[in-house]
């Protein structure tokens, strides 16, 4: 049997082979050396993070390059960036489940896993950036002896709820989808320790028809709810800026602009991970060139929509004619931080154009390079949005500058460790690709051939 043009997966593999191959990754880990090397790097970064946090909590947020007017910079900027990345997993998984795009089944598991840890990295930043983080609990409504409550008009307060909701829902969605695969892995496990570990996580899943029935319904409803949640969360994050009056922030364009940007950066990270895991675990049979092709198309589409945001931001300002907005636009494109703006434009959109070519989309390393460029570009964009508005806002007399310090960078690179360590552990210990869904895809394709 050979693969036909409409197939996502090569149909010359049995579902038993797929099952053995995927459960075998945690149970008989194939890529120990690469994994340990990656883990060593990740742990080193995590250590850097821990050192940075200790320094931060000991001395205060003044170890960063912040000042007045630039009261927010790296912390919030990386928060937005991480959260944007953290949007892809749930979006891919939920949206494509609803639209019945079966190619998702090879990607959704690790995309969702990536989402969780990216959201954790994002979620930790608002804590780190507090002047007095030990009073974080004041942001939650609890009956305090001081009789004072949180302030629900604040976008920061919205943030807390949005991010915690997003994290909780992502975890539940991810776990709900994972249960059958955990059961599969449990049944493949031979060592007692693995059996007990996976057995407890699988909750005694036995694949009963009625269970599957309820599971399918629940999972689809969850997906249906998760899609607007994804859209809402980054819209809400954008309100952190749009709710102010500052030029360059105060725009109704921000919510869609942020959501699209988030999806853009998220798909880029998914592409990177897809290429990497495929090579690492030899998953060429499951993550195929067709997957790359589809990912490349999605990346191109979200990228173009983000580009539309860039264009419309300019149009909006020119049409509005507010002198402060014009001043900020001019400064963004020609001022001290113009390299950020143009850097964002170049990294985001120039290599992206290669994806118009099918051959490029279907080449792993090319897709990887374009994606890395997008990740960098989106990082620059978030930096640009934060700093260029703050360092020169309304009154010229408060205009200042911003330069990140060593600790800004160390905290940022540290969060990459914070992301990688649990992610590497996750791909080590749980199936990286949804087994039963892949099997289902395979069977459906076969049926299509047979029928």
């Amino acid at each position, binding site marked *: 049997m050979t693969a036909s043009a409409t197939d996502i997966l090569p149909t010359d593999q049995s579902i038993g082979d797929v099952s053995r191959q995927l459960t075998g990754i945690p149970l008989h880990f194939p890529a120990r050396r690469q994994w340990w090397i990656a883990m060593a790097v990740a742990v080193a970064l995590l250590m850097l993070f821990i050192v940075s946090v200790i320094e931060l909590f000991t001395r205060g947020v003044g170890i960063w390059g912040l000042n007045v007017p630039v009261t927010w910079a790296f912390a919030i900027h990386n928060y937005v960036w991480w959260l944007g990345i953290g949007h892809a997993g749930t979006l891919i998984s939920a949206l494509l489940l609803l639209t019945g795009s079966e190619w998702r089944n090879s990607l959704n598991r690790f995309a969702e896993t990536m989402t969780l840890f990216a959201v954790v990295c994002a979620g930790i930043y608002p804590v780190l950036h507090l002047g007095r983080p030990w009073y974080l609990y004041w942001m939650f409504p609890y009956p305090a*002896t001081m*009789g004072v409550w949180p302030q629900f008009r604040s976008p920061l307060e919205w943030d807390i709820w949005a991010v915690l909701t997003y994290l909780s829902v992502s975890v539940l969605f991810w776990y709900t989808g994972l249960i059958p695969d955990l059961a599969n892995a*449990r*049944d493949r496990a031979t060592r007692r320790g693995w059996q*007990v570990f996976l*057995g*407890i996580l699988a909750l*005694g899943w036995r694949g009963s028809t009625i269970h599957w029935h309820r599971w399918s319904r629940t999972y689809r409803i969850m997906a249906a709810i998760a899609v607007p949640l994804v859209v809402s969360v980054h819209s809400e994050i954008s309100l952190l800026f749009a709710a102010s009056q500052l030029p360059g922030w105060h725009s109704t364009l921000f919510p869609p602009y942020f959501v699209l940007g988030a999806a853009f950066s998220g798909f880029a990270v998914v592409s990177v991970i897809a290429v990497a895991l495929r090579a690492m675990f030899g998953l060429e049979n499951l993550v195929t060139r067709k997957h790359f092709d589809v990912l490349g198309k999605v990346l191109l589409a979200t990228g173009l929509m983000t580009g539309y945001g860039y264009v419309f931001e300019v149009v909006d300002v020119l049409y509005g004619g507010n002198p402060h907005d014009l001043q900020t636009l001019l400064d963004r494109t020609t001022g001290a931080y113009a390299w950020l703006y143009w850097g964002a434009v170049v990294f985001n959109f120039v290599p992206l154009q290669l994806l118009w070519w099918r051959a490029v989309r279907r080449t792993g390393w090319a897709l990887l390079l374009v994606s890395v460029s997008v990740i960098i570009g989106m990082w620059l964009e978030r930096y640009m949005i934060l700093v260029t508005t703050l360092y020169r806002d309304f009154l010229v007399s408060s205009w200042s500058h911003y330069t990140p310090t060593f600790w800004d960078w160390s905290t940022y690179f540290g969060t990459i460790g914070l992301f990688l360590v649990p992610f590497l552990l996750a791909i080590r210990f749980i199936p990286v690709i949804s087994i039963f869904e892949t099997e289902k895809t395979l069977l459906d394709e076969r049926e299509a051939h047979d029928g």
Partner: protein
Amino acid sequence: MPRHSMTQIFSPAADTWLRLAVVGFLSVCGGSVVGAIGFARSAYVTSIDNAPHQPVPFSHRHHAGELGIDCRYCHADVEKGPKAGLPPTATCMTCHSQIWTNAAMLEPVRQSLVENKPLRWVRVAKLPDYVFFRHDIHIAKGVGCVTCHGRIDTMPLTYRAHAFTMQFCLDCHRDPTPNLRPADRITDMTWKPAGNPRDPGGKIAAHVGIRFGELTHCYVCHR
């Protein structure tokens, strides 16, 4: 590849344990939240009902209750300034140079006078540094001593009768009326309005010009 014949990994008891663990975990989580909220109100945190050791076992019950000495005899600044003032040693000695002149209990007082070294009392009614409380205005507006300090006249050793939480302050600042009393009853520990406390309180509030609604904004107490 060695094959196993059974998928049954767990014994029937495992389910019981798992359920117990889940219930236990949820209880611990919920319990800690409730516990923390309760702990913040506990006597340990608010330090109520705890009479610290003092250099002289001064009894308010004896002086203020049994002897009926007015609060302002010793806490002389209470109507004039923000602080009520701890009495200088000289105030103690106005009486104790005449009575109980040799009591061993009063040795630290005499020593203080002789050496010109102040007594080191332990303050019982203390607010955080960022609370700018003023005694004088409370007295001027008809808030009695007993309202915050409790029945000092029944305390053999002084303790904090009310938890000085912000909620405690807010309750009265939101609705001062029932807590107001006539100017000549400020230091009276036993005075109770006849009937509904709102009736005399309302009249007093109108008379002294309480600025209703302005007493709960932050800068009244914090700055």
